[in-house]
């Protein structure tokens, strides 16, 4: 089946996954060699690499690691497909679209709001409460962040106000989900409606038809002078927004809290078996409330970054489904911080690509906007097998 003779029985799941990563890497390389700076003009090497990746993936699926095996197969297929497209397009166009450092920087920018929301969702779901309302909380953060920054003339006060707004929306969701034990998905959807309605209403009320002013203080970028000289990485990390750095720090921090602290253990207990947690004296309601409010605050921070750190304006419903993409990233990442962050990077990359692709084809540019959503769809559909949520997520806990 493969060209490498490997003793099948001796390979552990962990080993299989490592091999899968090799396969995924090969698939990516298949695409990469057809793109600048190498820009091979024939698709033959990419075909070979792609087939190799597919073969590895298939072998791994047969060995039992279905998920990672399929990742490798998909990487092989897409890698070759992309390479094929690249070889058929003009070199000039390719070079203007695929500027790796710009792409990567854009990827980080697009991924950041997703990461905030995704990590927020992680806390909420690990504690056992589904938070479909991340989208709405993000939007609250976006609007109230920019409103706050405008009225107080300070970006960090604006950020705080945005975060508080998201937290309040989350508090409502928490109340309905935890105390009233309403269905969490319906409640989250309600929050989304309310957020769109409330922010739209206030947006028109305050700013009328002209929109937000252009001189609102925005979250500053962080200049790292010392990376200037480093090729490729220097260009990416030289000037990134503060929020991006916060997000980068937040990922390992979340991991630490969830898996290495007592509070994290208790949060996870509430999400797996709330009755068990209750019987050892943990206040399940309090922990769930805290987790949900935190999720709202984090999502709102991501939204505030969108409005006062990224595009520096507000439009009605500007989050455009990002909250749901963040949720999909969480599922895709198996409810773990690093996994979710990786998924956010993937989705961010697709948005970055979609942003640059109009240079490639004007009329099709609109179609490319659908790319992140299609990718999310594939991701959610492709989560075959072991994506195991916390056991009690979504179920209200009834105390007597």
């Amino acid at each position, binding site marked *: 089946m493969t060209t490498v003779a490997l003793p099948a029985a001796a390979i552990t799941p962990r080993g299989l996954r490592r091999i899968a990563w090799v396969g995924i890497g090969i698939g990516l390389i298949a695409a990469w060699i057809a793109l600048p700076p190498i820009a091979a003009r024939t698709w033959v090497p990419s075909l070979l690499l792609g087939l190799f990746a597919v073969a590895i993936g298939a072998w791994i699926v047969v060995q039992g690691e279905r998920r990672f095996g399929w990742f490798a197969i998909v990487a092989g297929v897409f890698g070759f497909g992309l390479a094929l497209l690249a070889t058929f397009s003009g070199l000039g166009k390719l070079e203007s679209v695929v500027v790796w450092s710009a792409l990567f920087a854009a990827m980080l920018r697009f991924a950041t709001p997703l990461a905030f929301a995704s990590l927020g969702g992680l806390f909420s779901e690990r504690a056992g409460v589904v938070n479909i309302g991340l989208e709405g909380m993000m939007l609250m953060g976006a609007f109230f962040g920019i409103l706050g920054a405008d009225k107080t003339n300070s970006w960090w006060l604006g950020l705080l106000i945005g975060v508080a707004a998201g937290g309040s929306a989350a508090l409502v969701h928490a109340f309905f989900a935890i105390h009233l034990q309403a269905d969490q998905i319906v409640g989250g959807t309600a929050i989304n409606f309310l957020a769109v309605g409330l922010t*739209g*209403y*206030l947006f*028109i009320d305050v700013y009328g038809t002209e929109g937000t002013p252009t001189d609102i203080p925005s979250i500053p970028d962080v200049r790292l002078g010392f990376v200037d000289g480093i090729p490729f990485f220097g260009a990416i990390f030289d000037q990134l927004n503060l929020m991006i750095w916060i997000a980068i720090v937040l990922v390992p921090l979340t991991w630490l809290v969830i898996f290495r602290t007592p509070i994290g253990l208790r949060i996870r207990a509430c999400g797996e078996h709330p009755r068990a947690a209750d019987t050892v004296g943990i206040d399940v309601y309090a922990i769930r409330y805290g987790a949900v409010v935190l999720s709202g605050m984090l999502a709102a921070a991501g939204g505030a970054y969108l409005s006062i750190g990224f595009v520096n304006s507000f439009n009605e419903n500007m989050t455009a489904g990002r909250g749901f993409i963040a949720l999909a990233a969480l*599922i895709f990442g198996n409810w773990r911080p690093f996994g979710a962050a990786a998924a956010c990077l993937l989705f961010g990359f697709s948005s970055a690509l979609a942003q640059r692709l109009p240079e490639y084809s004007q009329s099709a540019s609109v179609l490319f906007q*659908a790319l992140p959503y*299609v990718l999310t769809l594939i991701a959610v559909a492709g989560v075959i097998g072991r994506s195991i949520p916390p056991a009690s997520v979504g179920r209200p806990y*009834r105390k007597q």
Partner: protein
Amino acid sequence: MPRPRAGRRMTTTPAPGPGVDPSGLGPEKRASFIERYGISQRAEGLAAPLITTVLAFLVGGLVVLVTTGKNPLTTYRAIFEGAGFSWFFDLGSNRVGLPFSDATIWFPWNVSDAESVAAANLQQTLIVTTTLILTGLTVAFAFRCGMFNIGGQGQYLAGSIWAVWIGSSFSGLNPFLHIVLAIAVATLGGAVWAGIAGFLKATVGAHEVITTIMLNWVAIWVGSFLFGLGGPLQNDLQSSVPISNDVVENAFLPVFWGDALLQGLHVGLFLALAALVVYWGVLNRTTLGYGVRAVGFNPEAARYGGIGVARNYFLAMAISGAFAGLAGAIDVLGWQHRLSTSDIQTSQLGFIGIAVALLGRNTAVGVALAALLFGSLVTGTSTRNLDPEIFQPELASNLTLLIQGLVVLFVGADILVLWLLRRARGRR
């Protein structure tokens, strides 16, 4: 040493405890949202949705008061008039013609006054109600099978796109055939769009909330691409406007009340009413409906009973999407007659269907009434109908969204109230 026996079941699957367990502490048997919905359907009937609505309007009124200082009652009154209900207060002695003949019969309201603003408003309300009935049925049918179909908007768009394409092509076709063809293809288009999510749920268990929302956005962008500048379906004559070709006049749905040129009420209303009957009939009088309901209430028991769960998920989503596709076709053929990219990107009727279904408790009658309520809200707050002196229309449309959100929020909570009530009456 023998491998330890995994005695998982006693701990991970809460075993069914004593049959008589009023404490409810033993087994973690949570009444699912769908189960609770079922309870409420047999309970108070009208009272709960009424209370929910009143509450939502109350809070909405508060928002109005707090943010603009205006009297919420006058605002609601203006919305009421904008929706055209003041027409009902204008009783008189009039005559209306019977279909397929020249005879006329007595009718208390004046339907032939072409000048009546209230009549025009009411016609518009009913036009929107038509759409909302169908998008409401979309969500309701999926709910009956235990699924939350938030993709009504995308499925509606899918229907609209097919309808506008077929409606603007085949210009020589017999009108009746043309309409039937457009409606059939659009309905199928909506069914397929929802079917994607249904298929994913049936095969890999992908959560329909996320998949349908993603499909919504894909539909919006595909639609924007198709009718955008340079897009494949963009208008052949006006190349600078991102709009579709016009629907051929032959394929318009006939208008039976009001002026056809001024968006009079078209026969799509009857199609929507027929859909309500079909909805009820399928769910309660067919084997398919039995399966859908069984899976919606208890997929595990359905499976043990021999019913195919995955098959029902797929079919329920597809049928659900069909209603939405039909809505898209009716709107395009009935009054829109063309689609622009801004129409596609700003349309909300699919989303309002969610509130309609929830408020209407997923029943045919409930959906009809809730659709009327939201239809009047939408029309009453639109720029054309709402008196800007009383309240700014752009604000008012967001107010509608707010009220919608509040309805959805309170519905979730009052289900619980009903459920507690039922437990109080001693469920054994």
